[in-house]
């Protein structure tokens, strides 16, 4: 493509929608259930997550501005030396592969439950991975373009909340602070993963044209998706009882199910199949980052690395006899995500302590 020879390719719209679309994955669908330990008081939690994420963005972008042309992989090698850096990168790569598998497998399970009832997911998984590879082939800019497109494609899903609002009860939102500290921590621990995805900015930061304003654009994208997540959570709180929130695995999908048009029922089928756009934008961004990871570990960029990653993901999702292990792995990997949220802060500190000659400033 025409942009191959240029490093800086992402304009402000690309940044906004990359942040926005990568955040929204399958976790949004189950978020009200994940936060259910707080009961009805959970509805403002997405806003709190937004504040946390926005604060976490600051060290990420500060670090990026110090190393304007380097992805986090390269920064690791610069800060920790070649071998320690590569080891950290290898761990990151494994993390990306596990996240990719977790996202694809949780989405395909939903597809299996809702749309393709009782059918094997092998073929849908292969097609999903191939589609992801196809999107990543065009580079980060084409992923960003895809994000813009999927945003507008899926905007219509908000209409499906119509029935939830109509039948819901706004009084569920009160009282606001009806929970214990323990319930709050359980909810945050389980729910924070819903905003995972913005940390990828450390990897595509060198591709941003206007890096100085990146924080502003990234925050805008972040709050756009927080608004969506907030909206889904809020309507779920209005519509469901506390018992339902605790026991319904995917409350948002059930909200879709409430909708009935005169010619169409079971809008959740339409909703979950359209969700593939949001999943593709998430998996594409993670696959892109994973590919950059292999590139940096092997010190040579190759297109075939994409297929390596995809094969690993396929194996991880379809590995037989390990369902219990998979479930634990896919749930626990998000603790590594929380660590990655905080990681740039540590890197910033190391960068400040390090002697000046190692700086990658242009």
């Amino acid at each position, binding site marked *: 493509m*025409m942009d191959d020879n240029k490093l800086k390719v992402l304009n402000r*719209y690309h940044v906004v929608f990359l942040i926005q679309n990568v955040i929204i994955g399958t976790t949004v669908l189950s978020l009200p259930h994940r936060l259910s330990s707080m009961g009805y008081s959970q509805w403002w939690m997405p806003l709190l997550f937004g504040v946390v994420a926005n604060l976490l963005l600051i060290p990420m972008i500060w670090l990026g501005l110090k190393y304007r042309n380097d992805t986090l992989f390269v920064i690791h090698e610069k800060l920790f030396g070649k071998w320690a850096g590569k080891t950290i990168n290898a761990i990151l790569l494994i993390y990306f592969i596990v996240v990719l598998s977790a996202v694809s497998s949780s989405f395909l399970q939903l597809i299996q439950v809702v749309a393709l009832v009782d059918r094997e997911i092998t073929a849908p998984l292969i*097609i999903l991975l191939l589609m992801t590879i196809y999107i990543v082939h065009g580079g980060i800019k084409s992923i960003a373009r895809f994000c813009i497109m999927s945003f507008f494609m899926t905007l219509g899903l908000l209409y499906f909340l119509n029935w939830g609002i109509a039948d819901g009860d706004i009084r569920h939102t009160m009282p606001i602070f009806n929970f214990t500290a323990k319930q709050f921590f359980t909810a945050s621990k389980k729910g924070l993963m819903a905003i995972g995805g913005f940390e990828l900015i450390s990897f595509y930061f060198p591709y941003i044209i206007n890096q100085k304003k990146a924080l502003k654009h990234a925050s805008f994208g972040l709050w756009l998706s927080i608004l969506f997540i907030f909206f889904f959570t809020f309507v779920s709180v209005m519509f469901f009882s506390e018992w339902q929130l605790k026991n319904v695995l995917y409350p948002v999908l059930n909200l879709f199910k409430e909708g009935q048009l005169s010619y169409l029922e079971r809008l959740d089928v339409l909703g979950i199949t359209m969700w593939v756009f949001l999943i593709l934008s998430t998996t594409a961004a993670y696959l892109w980052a994973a590919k950059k990871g292999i590139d940096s570990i092997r010190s040579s960029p190759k297109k075939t690395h994409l297929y390596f990653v995809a094969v690993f993901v396929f194996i991880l999702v379809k590995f037989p006899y390990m369902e219990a292990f998979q479930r634990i792995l896919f749930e626990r990997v998000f603790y590594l995500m929380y660590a990655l949220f905080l990681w740039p802060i540590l890197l910033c500190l190391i960068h400040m302590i390090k002697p000046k000659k190692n700086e990658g400033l242009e």
Partner: protein
Amino acid sequence: MQSKANVLQTAEVIEASDLANIISSVTEGNTILYFHIEDLYLSIKTFSAPTAAIAETDTESSVIGPQNALTESLETNLSLLKRRIQNPNLKIKNFVVGPETNTKVSVLYMENIVNEENLDIVIKKIEKIDHPGFNDISILQQLLDEHPFSPFPQYHETVRPDIAVSGLLDGRIVVAMENSNGIIICPISFFELFISPEDYYNRWTTASLLRSLRFFGFFLTIILTPTYISVLTYHPEMLPFDVLLNLQESRGKVPFSPFMEVLFMELVIEILREAGSRMPTKIGQTIGIVGGIVIGTAAVEASLVSNTLIVIVAVSALLSFLPPNFIMSNTSRFVRYFFIFSAGLFGLYGQMLAFAWLFHHLLSLTSLNTPYMTPLIPRKWTDLFDSVVRMPTKFLKYKPGIARAQTKKRPPVDKEE
């Protein structure tokens, strides 16, 4: 020696040593007059190629607006365009392509508006072309494509001089060819292929209505029959009970799966279209009656297909003829089969993945290195005045972002801050 040429008004002096020029002059149909004593060659235009008269267009007709179509003579076509733009900035560069046919090609542009980078690309591409001969400009168009494997047309081909002129005024480049009715306009965006010139002659309200019909019709025609397949095969629970009952009743005696049923009916329509397109008009009407009434009704009565499907297939066939660009209308037919197969394989999930493919493909296409999806993802906000809604004419003074036209006042559009 020149005095002899001055006597003969249409004569041209040729150097004696320039044998190639003499030969090409003869193949063009000229007469060579040779003066022994002075060793002088005069090439005299004693031949004028028969050209068809300027006529109305059959393929891109409109109710209001100019009716003339371009002809097969390059000279006439250029004069039709020059007649509309009386401006010294209208420049023409001439090329000869195809070593066997030696076909003349002209590149037209407005020197004060055109993006020079785009112009360079076009000229370089034409100079690099390696193809033995040309019968029509469509071949040249495909050779200029940046993505030859894509089903989508990446330049606009038209026989209407008014479209060419508005293209030139936008800062686009027009390529014309000898012996070819059409001219190509580059660059072009996906959305612009749904714009008919009549949109600009109608009131803005009518124009916007028809334009959105054409644009959304394209997406409707590729998902109507696939949706029938996926809903009946994979998600019957999506239909309300009454509708489902209705559908199942009409499908009651059909022995095929929805997928086979749709494929059968779509192929029948395809065959009718193909058979009708080469028939003389009078026989064509018969084909229409045979196809429409006999096959339609008989197929239902023979329980080969359901009533509902006949309606859906007919509507989607009609919708596929909406795009003013004929190639785009053909593309919609091809893309529909892709959707039919993915719906047959994975239901709605397959359809959505097919949509993801379609959108990603469109997003990565370029026309003269400019993204094909502008102005859906606008390069300039003023592009939105002339998108699905066509604003009243006084808003239309801005150049579209895709042409990257020269403007002294504005900074280049692709730079930020």
